């Protein structure tokens, strides 16, 4: 039996039946290997998944620094998503909403008699104290059930105060994971924000970075390199993000999609509505960063830009060559398991490869099949009741703002060469024999650690200490264990350094006390003095 079968064998028949579809062993000889994803977690299973609110407010909207994001609900949800995700942001004035937590802190009477009144009052107070240009309202579980109409309150707010106010019905029970929340946030930004600005891009080489949340400063490292080459970054969705920039994002000529899962809806809708092409990039990993930069240059098709790209790549590589070699020598031959949200489990495999680390297991918390198998499978994905509950919006080409950058011939030519308007998924970058797990849980983490014996297990905080107690290094790929950036050239070195530190820290050598390996009596006998 292989590791997958050994593990599945331990489940009861019903759980087995469910989980076996979510766990596959990669076999390159089988074309189109399928995995089940984006379905309900079985009750009772200790899943790592979060909820719709976490995806909407926590992931996509939370990083926007110039809006007041107001959680409408009891205090918990807002409190937990306060300053805990490391999506860094700075502003020139120092006025930065993301340092704050705003909540309506609903109380029992609000649940019984409805919370709209309190929401209105909270907005009034927010206007008086903070005078924001934009308020985003995010609702939590009870709000949908008691029927508060947050959209009506948002509309009133706009009328009364002359600001932008957008409501997001991202109650935690919607969908099966954070994923539904990403979609809801994408819809709101698309409907109300993108395309409303009239500040044109300054240059031809203008791009948006989508699905980059500036965890640990990643986006700043990516932007540093892009600017050095000569690109203009119009907006970032949504790391260090600003609603002003997002308004003008439709003026960019290309969308770069970093985290596919959380933002692909906007990439697709912008293509339909504004004609903006997107390419799937990955700025995690040196080879990956280099190939993303080359794809960008290919898109714009300017020999000068290509030359500059190569120049910058060479410069950047030269600057880190020595450290790269050093960390590679420390890490080569190690094995890793990765379990992260929706794109990183793919991205980080490439960075690990740079250092000679092989991935033996990878999984996503809230991905859909296309994140594993590539977007080609989208037409074949059957909608279930849970995904139907998440609204999908239809957009049309905007008669005034629609423009295409590539000629049809260039488009066709490029299509074969780069991942243009598509994504091929994680599995194609994995070796035969490695394991892919969707919605990996506590039990499976423990069992796979035992069965596969990876040297490093990347996951989140809920798993970290369980894994380490089993004697295996665990680093958090959500928060980078309070380090970073890990993106781009300098980020790769930070990553190599952190990993090396983790594997070689002397504490590992002290787990077994000396009296466990050698009895005191024997030791003295061997010493021969008795």
């Amino acid at each position, binding site marked *: 039996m292989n590791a997958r079968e050994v593990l599945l064998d331990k489940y009861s028949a019903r759980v087995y039946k469910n989980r076996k579809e979510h766990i596959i062993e990669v076999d390159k000889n089988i074309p189109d290997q399928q995995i089940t994803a984006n379905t*309900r977690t079985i009750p009772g299973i200790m899943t790592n*998944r979060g909820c719709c609110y976490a995806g909407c407010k926590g992931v996509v909207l939370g990083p926007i620094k110039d809006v007041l994001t107001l959680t409408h609900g*009891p205090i918990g*949800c807002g409190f937990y998503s306060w300053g805990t995700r490391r999506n860094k942001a700075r502003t020139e004035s120092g006025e930065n909403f993301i340092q704050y937590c705003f909540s309506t*802190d609903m109380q029992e009477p609000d649940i019984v008699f409805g919370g709209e009144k309190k929401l209105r009052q909270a907005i009034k107070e927010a206007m008086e104290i903070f005078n924001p240009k934009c308020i985003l309202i995010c609702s939590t579980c*009870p709000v949908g059930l008691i029927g508060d109409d947050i959209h009506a309150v948002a509309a009133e707010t706009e009328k009364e105060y002359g600001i932008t106010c957008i409501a997001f019905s991202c109650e*935690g029970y919607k969908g099966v994971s954070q994923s539904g929340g990403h979609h809801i946030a994408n819809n709101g930004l698309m409907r109300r924000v993108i395309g409303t600005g009239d500040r044109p891009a300054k240059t031809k080489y203008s791009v948006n970075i989508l699905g980059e949340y500036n965890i640990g400063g990643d986006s700043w490292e990516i932007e540093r390199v892009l600017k050095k080459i000569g690109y203009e970054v119009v907006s970032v969705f949504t790391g260090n993000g600003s609603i002003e920039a997002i308004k003008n994002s439709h003026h960019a000529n290309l969308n770069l999609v970093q985290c596919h899962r959380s933002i692909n809806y906007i990439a697709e809708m912008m293509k339909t509505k504004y004609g903006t092409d997107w390419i799937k990039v990955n700025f995690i990993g040196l080879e990956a960063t280099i190939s993303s930069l080359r794809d960008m240059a290919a898109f714009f098709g300017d020999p000068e830009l290509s030359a500059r790209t190569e120049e910058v790549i060479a410069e950047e590589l030269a600057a880190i060559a020595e450290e790269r070699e050093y960390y590679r020598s420390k890490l080569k031959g190690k094995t890793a398991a990765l379990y992260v949200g929706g794109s990183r489990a793919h991205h980080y495999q490439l960075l690990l490869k740079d250092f000679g680390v092989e991935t033996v297991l990878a999984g996503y918390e809230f991905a859909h099949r296309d994140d594993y198998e590539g977007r080609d499978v989208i037409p074949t994905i059957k909608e279930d009741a849970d995904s139907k509950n998440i609204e999908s919006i239809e957009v049309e080409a905007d008669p005034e703002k629609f423009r295409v950058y590539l000629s049809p011939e260039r488009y066709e030519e490029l299509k074969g060469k780069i991942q243009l308007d598509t994504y091929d998924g994680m599995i194609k970058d994995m070796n035969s024999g490695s394991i892919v797990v969707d919605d990996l849980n506590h039990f499976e983490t423990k069992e796979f650690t035992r069965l596969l014996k990876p040297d490093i297990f990347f996951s989140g905080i809920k798993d970290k200490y369980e894994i380490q*107690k089993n004697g295996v290094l665990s680093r958090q790929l959500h928060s980078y264990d309070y380090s970073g950036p890990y993106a781009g050239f300098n980020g790769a070195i930070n990553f190599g350094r952190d990993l090396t530190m983790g594997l070689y820290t002397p504490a590992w050598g002290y787990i077994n006390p000396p009296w466990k390996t050698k009895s005191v009596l024997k030791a003295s006998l061997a010493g021969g003095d008795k």
Partner: protein
Amino acid sequence: MLNLTPKKIYERSALRVNPCKTCQPVGALYAALGVHKCMPHSHGSQGCVSYHRTFLTRHFKEPAIASTSSFTEGASVFGGGSNLKTGVKNVFDIYDPDIIAVHTTCLSETIGDDLNAYIQDMDLPEGKIVVHTNTPSYVGSHINGFFNMMCGFINYLSQSTGVKNGKTAIFPGFVNPGDIREMKKIAKLMNVPFVMFPDQSGVMDAPMSGHYEMYPKGGTTIPEIVGLGDCEKVLALGELTCEEPANVLERKCGVPYELLPLPIGIEGTDRFVMALSEISHDDVPYELEEERGQLVDVMLDAHPYYHDKKVAIFGDPDTVLGLTSFALELGMIPKYVITGTPGEGFVRKATALFDKFGVFDCTAKAGADLFELHQWIKNESVDLLLGTSYGKQIAKAEDIPFVRAGFPVLDRYAHSYFPIVGYRGALRLLELISNALMDRRDKDAADEDLDVVM
């Protein structure tokens, strides 16, 4: 930092900014982790428990286990009965705890799931137990969740056989494992046979062995919880946290209780020790008297560095009251004393402390938030901040020395291993406080003023 916070104070009745409390379930989860071989179970959608486990793990740097009913939209409309049933079955199958402690979330509370009925309907494996409590997050705070879960265990399990077991039950309140260990040490020194409930020591401070134990050695055992009903007496530490469970036990099993403040500082600890000595009818051993004497000794030695210094204290009600009491014993002025947990009892008790020590112009508020505290500080500053991790923002914004204590402390390591209770805990607090203030003096000193001896 916090540049949007204006000095001018507006009355707020609806907008909560930078809270100083969180929701009930996380408290219930923590209480349940203090029971041996217990799986806490969150009856709601999975996002809540994901947040709660994360929160506790960040504080303790230890795994915090809990399962969930994983509601989806269907369950939210039709009720979560079948989710709970499946959930409980799977938890016993896969994780094999002895007991599952279910708490609710906003969601299951709002739809009105009847947990009693669900649990009665279940076929449980031989010898396994399921208990529950209701933890609506729109009432109170995580403190309510904590004591509600204690009540849940008592309601389901504690029995009085009519024969006393000679033990004293100690309810330690919402404290760290390091505090619980200190309380146990004191009770042992006082020769009082006791049951600690709940007891997260040995669970949320489990050692590194190379083998993960899902259910570490610590925790109150099920027979011990059953036996609470035969205890002689309950010492309920933390008057605003532990009265309810003590009351429930008294009503159910007739066990009398004595309500005490958390043993933080000299007087708090004295009261705990005196209560124990009344039970044991024994003298206080020299070991404790020595600890106390050492503490007073250092209090005197170091007083110039904290006497008359103004401090703002924030966090959970009983912890804050204990810290306030100790600050007053040190001769400090607890200028602002706040908790996010609502309840006027807190304000009465804090004010009584102010009066007792004759300090003026100090403010206590329950149901407050850190935004408001920051505004007060902008209007009249303090010399020291004492409280939970989120205070670091204010500390940075206003350049005020900061000592961390209470829940949560998310940004430091090893803190949960050391007590703030008992004489030893007070000595540690004293060291932290005086170090912070003295570091500040060193940092601000001109070269010619830098004292090598202080």
